[in-house]
């Protein structure tokens, strides 16, 4: 029997904007990663201005959480301007670390802000322990692994190299080695390594063979056209394997995803980590955690490369399956204990008679049927139809600010 001296790994969540940052932390993330207005790959993920970063860091500090900035472009000559100022500013703002793929940026960061932690991004495809050792010797505290690495390989890396390992546990995946795909550059003249990826891997193609009798269409016009779309990663059923392999930071993908997605996914993994650490020997996965993950899932789910090499079963063919099955219906802004009324900001059409589910941090959940709604002027209404309208809703159990309401589609 192994003695368990492990410390809890960090649960690291994406935060596409300030609101998502707050929700991620509120629902239990130990750290979030965000994008600045320069040098990041998610040019349209609602990136943070320096002021917003300051606000985000102040919020995170209250909860003892960290904020990292992804500056993970593969730079071209003309992108090299302003790097020093950028990293210096991040350090002064109180950012805990930067996630970087291009050595030009690593160097600039270390020159401009020697105490700002630099983590190697997954875009650099760190896939073996010697690369980890190389960066360790360069003085970097952490590498984010390529998604092609197995649990066994991680274990070996941790045995051989004393460096923090960050690994993805949930979210969408490139089907290529990250950084080694320029389909988008070629098909759409948009640079995938500077944030322009057009998701060309998920398009439909026709596959042909050169045979002895000329060119044969293998997939032409059939409904099962050629494509290279990966299912999304989820380690919900196997998280202890990664923890025991020694992963230091468990990372959720998705800076473009909704607050509903971020809150739901973070909530589940928080619950799993905490439950596991309370009593590792008797830990058992609960069906309700798996069900909960599926409420935010956008594609079918796979464990990627963590166990066996992915096959066709880990790819998406044919018509996209209809996931998610839930809508984010409303956000709780306030709750009045006396009247049992919740103030709810509408995020999707809901109305009397709808079956809804409320949920909040610490895996708080209950279901109810909506019986009464009032609008801003305290007029009773049948349905909350207007985007972002403020309503009052009668609730069966107490709720609080940051709780959410979802409903089936």
């Amino acid at each position, binding site marked *: 029997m192994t003695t368990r001296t492990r410390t809890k790994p960090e649960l690291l969540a994406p935060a596409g904007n300030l609101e998502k940052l707050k929700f991620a932390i509120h629902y239990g993330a130990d750290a979030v990663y965000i994008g600045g207005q320069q040098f990041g790959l998610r040019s349209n993920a609602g990136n943070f201005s320096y002021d917003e970063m300051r606000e985000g860091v102040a919020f995170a500090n209250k909860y003892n959480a960290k904020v990292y900035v992804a500056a993970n*472009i*593969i*730079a*071209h*000559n003309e*992108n*090299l301007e302003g790097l020093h100022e950028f990293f210096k500013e991040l350090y002064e703002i109180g950012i805990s670390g930067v996630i970087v793929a*291009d*050595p*030009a940026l*690593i*160097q600039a960061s270390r020159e401009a802000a020697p105490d700002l932690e630099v983590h190697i991004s997954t875009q*650099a*495809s760190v*896939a*073996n*322990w*010697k*690369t980890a*050792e*190389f960066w360790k*010797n360069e003085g970097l505290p952490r590498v984010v692994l390529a998604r092609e690495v197995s649990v066994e*390989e991680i274990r*070996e890396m941790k045995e051989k190299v004393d460096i923090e390992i960050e690994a993805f546990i949930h979210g969408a995946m490139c*089907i*290529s*080695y990250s*950084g*080694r*795909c*320029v*389909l988008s*550059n*070629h*098909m759409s*003249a*948009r*640079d995938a*390594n500077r*944030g*322009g990826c057009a998701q060309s891997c998920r398009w*439909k*193609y*026709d*596959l*042909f*063979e*050169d*045979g002895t009798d000329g060119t044969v269409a*293998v997939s032409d016009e*059939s409904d*099962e056209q*050629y494509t*290279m779309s990966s299912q999304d990663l989820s380690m919900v059923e196997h998280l202890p394997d990664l923890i025991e392999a020694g992963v230091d930071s468990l990372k959720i993908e998705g800076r473009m995803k909704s607050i509903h997605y971020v809150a739901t996914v973070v909530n589940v993994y928080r619950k799993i980590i905490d439950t596991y650490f309370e009593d590792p020997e008797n830990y058992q996965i609960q069906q309700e955690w798996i069900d909960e993950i599926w409420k935010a899932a956008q594609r079918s789910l796979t464990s990627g*490369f963590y166990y066996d*090499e*992915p*096959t*066709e079963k880990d*790819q998406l063919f044919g018509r996209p399956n209809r996931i998610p099955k839930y809508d984010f219906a409303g956000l709780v802004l306030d709750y009045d204990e006396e009247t049992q009324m919740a103030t709810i900001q509408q995020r999707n059409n809901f109305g009397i008679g709808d079956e809804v589910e409320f949920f909040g941090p610490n895996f708080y959940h209950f279901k109810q049927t909506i019986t009464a709604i009032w609008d801003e002027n305290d007029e009773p209404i049948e349905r909350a139809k207007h985007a972002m309208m403020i309503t009052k809703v009668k609730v069966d159990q107490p709720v609080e600010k940051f709780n959410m309401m979802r409903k089936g589609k």
Partner: protein
Amino acid sequence: MSSYKPELQVSARNLEEVKRLAQAGADAIFVGNQQFANRQPGDFSLFEIKEATEWLHSQGKKIYVMVNAIYHNEHLESLPTYLKDLEQLKVDGIVAGDQSIYQILRDIKCSLPLTWDPETLSTNYQTLNFWAQRGLSRATLSNELSLDAVIKIKENVHFPIEMQIHGMTNIFHSKRKLVRNYYAQIDETYDRSKTRFIKENRKPETHYPIFEDLNGTHIMSNEDLAMIEYLDQIIDAKIDGLYIEGILKTIDYNEKIVALYREAIDTYLADPAAFETKKTAFKQMIADIQPDDRQLNTGFYFKEQID
């Protein structure tokens, strides 16, 4: 006069091709073993590399060995010995793109010159200077750069720079078996000896070769690069290595292509005015032997991209 002369490089499938391509005018031949290298036209054993090395050196030519896989822990078990063996064979250098190579060469005290070729990640001079401080001897630039960017990089580094000037370029690398998986999905038998390509939906004019090797699935560009008429600009910028990708082409084609580029380079070096008069003809000679399904173009060297 400086002693600058670009090195004309081409990949080869087997020993016979090594000889024919060198005799056609290549200065350096690229070979590889599929265990450690991506996208090899052939699969050279150490013994074959030895023979190729001896023969090429007797002709005053060079040999570089591709070890450009993305390494996993498994590769690391046999790679150090392999590198030591290559060093003993006195090959002229290795081509690698996995960051661990810097650590490995240092650990095993291997003095083989390293051509750093991280494919898509070789896009600016500061990055390359970072790697130069860690031991690269030469660097291959990414194909998705403008010629201006190539020239700017060359001006800002102090080591030799290589670029691809002809043939298809790699545009996608996955560790997964994405061709085999599809055959399994549609319940057809996968025959690994066939060559394949994909077309974009409703774009019948497109043609992207796709294949698997030991290190996964690779997709190649829609067009073949052909920079022959711009050799003047490339040579004026003193780019050091000019690479012809031979994969998925016949030896007859590659041999003619090498000979044409040899002639074009030598013409320009000897007499720029003569090159000027002949360059359209050079281009035409390539067009004449070009397979019907492979268009020619200049890649990203003169193309705008959105970032």
